[in-house]
C-alpha cells in the first residue's frame, strides 16, 4: 500500500456512510496524509465536528474525537484547546455547519486567533439534510429550498474569515489532493486560527438539481475552474467570475490566544494579590 491510511482509522468503521463519489472521503485522505507528514502522535490530536455529512468524519479517526451539535464545533474545540493546550486541535465542518448556523463561532475563533485548524468541506449545499440551500450555494443554483433558483448571494469564506481576523486562510478543492494535503499541513503548523476552505462535491444533492451530476464530472469542474492565487492576481475581476481561486490568501503572525492566556493572564494573576 502506498499510504497506510488505516493506521489512522478506527477499526471496523469502514465503509463510511458517505454516498458514492462524495468528495468528503477524498478530503479525508488528504487530511490523513497531512497528519502523517507532520509526524504527530494520534494521542495528541483532537478532531471536533458539528453536524452534517462532513461532520461524521471524526468518528472514523483513531484520535480524540468529538461530534458535537450543529454549528458549534468551534465552541467545543475552544474549550478543549484552552483546557489542554498541548492538543493539536482540528475542526472539521461542512459549509453549512461552519458558515450558516456556525457563522458566529467562526468569526470569533478567527478574531481570537486561537490555535485551531478549521477544515471546511465546502460542497455548496446541505448534504445531510437533503440538499437545501447553503450560504455557499451559487446564485441561480437549484436547491430543495430554492425551487426557483438561488437568490441568496453566497459568502466568500476566505474573505469572511479574513475580515474577521483569521491569520491563516487558504483555499483548495477536493480534486487537488496534493495541494489539500500541503495546505492542511501548513494550516496545522501555523500558530493561530487557520482555515482551509476546501471546495468539495456532493453528487447526491448538489448534483441532483444541478449540472454536472456525476462525481467525476464535478471534480473535473473543480479542476477546470481553479486558478492559483498568484495567477488570479494578474487577471481582471471579469475573468475571475465563477472561478475557484486557490492558494494561501492570508498568513500572518499574531499572538495566539491559548499562549497569551497561559503566558500573560495567569502569570499576572498569580503575581497580583
Amino acid at each position, binding site marked *: 500500500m502506498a499510504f497506510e491510511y488505516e493506521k489512522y482509522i478506527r477499526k471496523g468503521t469502514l*465503509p463510511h*456512510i*458517505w*454516498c*458514492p463519489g462524495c468528495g468528503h472521503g477524498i478530503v479525508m485522505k488528504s487530511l490523513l496524509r497531512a497528519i502523517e507528514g507532520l509526524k504527530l502522535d494520534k494521542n495528541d490530536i483532537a478532531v471536533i465536528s458539528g453536524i452534517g455529512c462532513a461532520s461524521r468524519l471524526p468518528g472514523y479517526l483513531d484520535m480524540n474525537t468529538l461530534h458535537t451539535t450543529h454549528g458549534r464545533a468551534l465552541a467545543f474545540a475552544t474549550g478543549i484547546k484552552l483546557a489542554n493546550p498541548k492538543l493539536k486541535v482540528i475542526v472539521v465542518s461542512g459549509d453549512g455547519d461552519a458558515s450558516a448556523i456556525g457563522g458566529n463561532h467562526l468569526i470569533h475563533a478567527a478574531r481570537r486567533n486561537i490555535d485551531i485548524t478549521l477544515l471546511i468541506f465546502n460542497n455548496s449545499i446541505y448534504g*445531510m439534510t437533503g440538499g437545501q440551500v447553503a450560504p455557499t450555494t451559487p446564485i441561480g443554483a437549484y436547491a430543495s429550498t430554492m425551487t426557483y433558483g438561488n437568490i441568496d448571494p453566497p459568502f466568500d469564506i476566505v474573505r469572511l474569515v479574513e475580515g474577521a481576523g483569521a491569520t491563516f486562510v487558504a483555499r483548495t478543492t477536493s480534486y487537488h489532493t496534493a495541494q489539500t494535503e500541503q495546505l492542511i499541513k501548513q494550516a496545522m503548523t501555523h500558530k493561530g486560527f487557520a482555515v482551509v476552505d476546501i471546495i468539495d462535491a456532493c453528487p*447526491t444533492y448538489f448534483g441532483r438539481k444541478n449540472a454536472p451530476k456525476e462525481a467525476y464530472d464535478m471534480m473535473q469542474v473543480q479542476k477546470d475552474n481553479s486558478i492559483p492565487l498568484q495567477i488570479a492576481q494578474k487577471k481582471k475581476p471579469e475573468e475571475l467570475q465563477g472561478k475557484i481561486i486557490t492558494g494561501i490568501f492570508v498568513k500572518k503572525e499574531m499572538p495566539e490566544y491559548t499562549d497569551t492566556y497561559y503566558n500573560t493572564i495567569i502569570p499576572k494573576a498569580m503575581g497580583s494579590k
Partner: protein
Amino acid sequence: MEKNIEIRLSGEGGQGLILAGVILASAALIDGKNAAQSQYYGPESRGGISKSEVVISTGDIIYPEVADPDLVLVLSQVACGPYTKDIRRDDAYVIFDANTVKEFPKLEHGRIYKLPFTMTAHDKLGKPFIANIIALGTIVGLTNVVSREAIEQAVLARVPKGTEELNKTALSEGFELAKTIK
C-alpha cells in the same frame, strides 16, 4: 376483503422501497380505497437497513403501520432478521429476493417464496435498480390488493419521464413472476 391489508417492503437504502410503497398506496387511492404508507431509513445514504410499509383498507386505517403483516417483501440480507420476526399468520406472504438474500431466516409462519427480482431486473431489463417495480408487480399479481390498472397508472405517474416503458415492462415481469408461484 374486509380486513386491512398490511404490506411491508424491506431491504436497504437505494433500492427504491419508499417509492414502491408510495406507488402502491397511490394505486389504492386510485381504486377508491384508503391507504397509509410509512417508512424507516437510517442516516447512511447507501446500504443502511430500510423499510416501507403500506396499509390498505376500504375503511378507516386505525394503526398506520404493519401490526400484523399480510405480506413482507425482503430485498436484502440485512432486512431479513428484523423485518420478518413479527409474522404471525400462516397465510402471510413472505417474499425474498432470491439473488440478494443468501441466508434465510427460519420462520414459523407464512407462505415463503424466493423470487429472482434482482436477476430479472439485471438480466432481462438491464437495470438492477428496477427490482422494486418488478416486486410491485408480483405483489399485486399475488394479492390483488389493488387493481392492475391502478398500479400501472400509479407507476406511470411517479416514475421519471422517459422511463415509462421500462417500468411498464418491469411491472409485467413482476406479474409473470407471480404466476410462477400462484
